[in-house]
């Protein structure tokens, strides 16, 4: 196994398990990232670029449906507006979204702190 190989070999379930666990780990934190990024108004493509710029490269097929779901849950507002001679849908966080974001940030920090401790203890 080279240093660039995923940390799970075939004996531990193989690359599929590796991908699935990575996806699960990311899925929970993506909503937090999107809510945080939408404290400033963005449209779908610009949001994706914004997240990419900070190292979160999320596929269209994951990001765009997630944004819609957050909007359906009342955590985001959206409106169609004219910009650069064509229509785009702009998203921004709602009051409910802001409250949820604060809860998620608190949770994230607790998990982060605990994981940090555990990982430091690891041999």
């Amino acid at each position, binding site marked *: 196994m080279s240093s660039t190989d995923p940390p799970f070999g075939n004996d531990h379930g193989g690359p599929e398990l590796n991908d699935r666990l990575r996806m699960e780990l990311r899925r929970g934190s993506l909503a937090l990232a999107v809510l945080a990024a939408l404290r400033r108004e963005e449209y*779908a*493509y610009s949001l994706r670029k914004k997240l990419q710029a900070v190292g979160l490269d999320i596929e269209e097929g*994951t990001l*765009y449906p997630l944004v819609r*779901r957050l909007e359906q849950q009342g955590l985001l507002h959206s409106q169609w507006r004219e910009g650069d001679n*064509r*229509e*785009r849908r702009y998203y921004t966080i709602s009051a409910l979204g802001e409250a949820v974001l604060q809860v998620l940030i608190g949770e994230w920090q607790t998990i982060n702190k605990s994981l940090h401790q555990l990982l430091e203890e690891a041999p």
Partner: protein
Amino acid sequence: MNLVQRYIQAVKLELPVAVREDIGRELQSTIQDELEAFAQRNGRSPSEAEVGEHLKRMGHPVRVASTYWTRRSLVSEAAYPLYKQALLVAMSVYVTIGVLMAVAELGQAQTWGLLMFPRVLYDIAATVLFGFFAITLVFHYFGDQIAAQPYFWRWRTERLPSVESPAAYLPRPQTVSELLGNVFALTLLAVGPLGFRAYGFTLDFSPVGGVLAALLVLTLLDFGLNLLNLLQPYWTKAKLIVRLLVGLGVGFCLVQLLLIPQLVGASSTLTLNPSQLSSINLSLKFTVGICLAILVWTEGRALLRLLPLRLPRF
């Protein structure tokens, strides 16, 4: 842009009508953004091949549309263990009812033809499918309420079954289903030959001696073992040995039945041509074969599960 329009149209066709236009509009806007970014990076508009490549990278329209659907399941995770248990018991009841009804139908039949047995099998399958549908429907709509019943919050640890090896625990619904199977087999063994004789068939098992009597005794033994399992729902070595011996005995009897050239014959009162009689015998052997396959499957599965365990001796 023709390719983009076609792609969006294909995605829209797979979406719920209520959100179809909205998602299509947004998808068009984002694809346009992506293509404009391409043009900015390369100083030229993308060729049709490059547009096609971009769309291909986005994924098949059906897969793209599927990401906008909320995940649905027929039975919620909380209700699933109960659903599985209910299904096991209900399926056993339905299979028993289905088979008994089929036997009754066969008994009332005036003529015996080649199509008789496939139709009977179809009736059994239809009864079982109906049961599956009914249980799934109940759990689909009421599963969460059932799982939230106070019973599941008032349980006490000291009332859980005491076992030395937790993996050797035998769920009671499974035992109930096996008991139903025993009742069905006993009915068939006791009433089946009488029914065949009443309708003018002859049974000659002389080549294999008392195979039916042996099957009856073995089934009674298994019935007793299952009753015991209902009271003490875990495996012990003694129970496992008895179960395996019963299984081997039943398997031996079934093989003997398969080896008889003709299971049933026609008496002088029954007017059957040789091909009709041969199709009835073939169907009966097929049924015995299915029983044997099920036996090998269940015994093999039990062995694989239980052999590695450290079981209590008695």
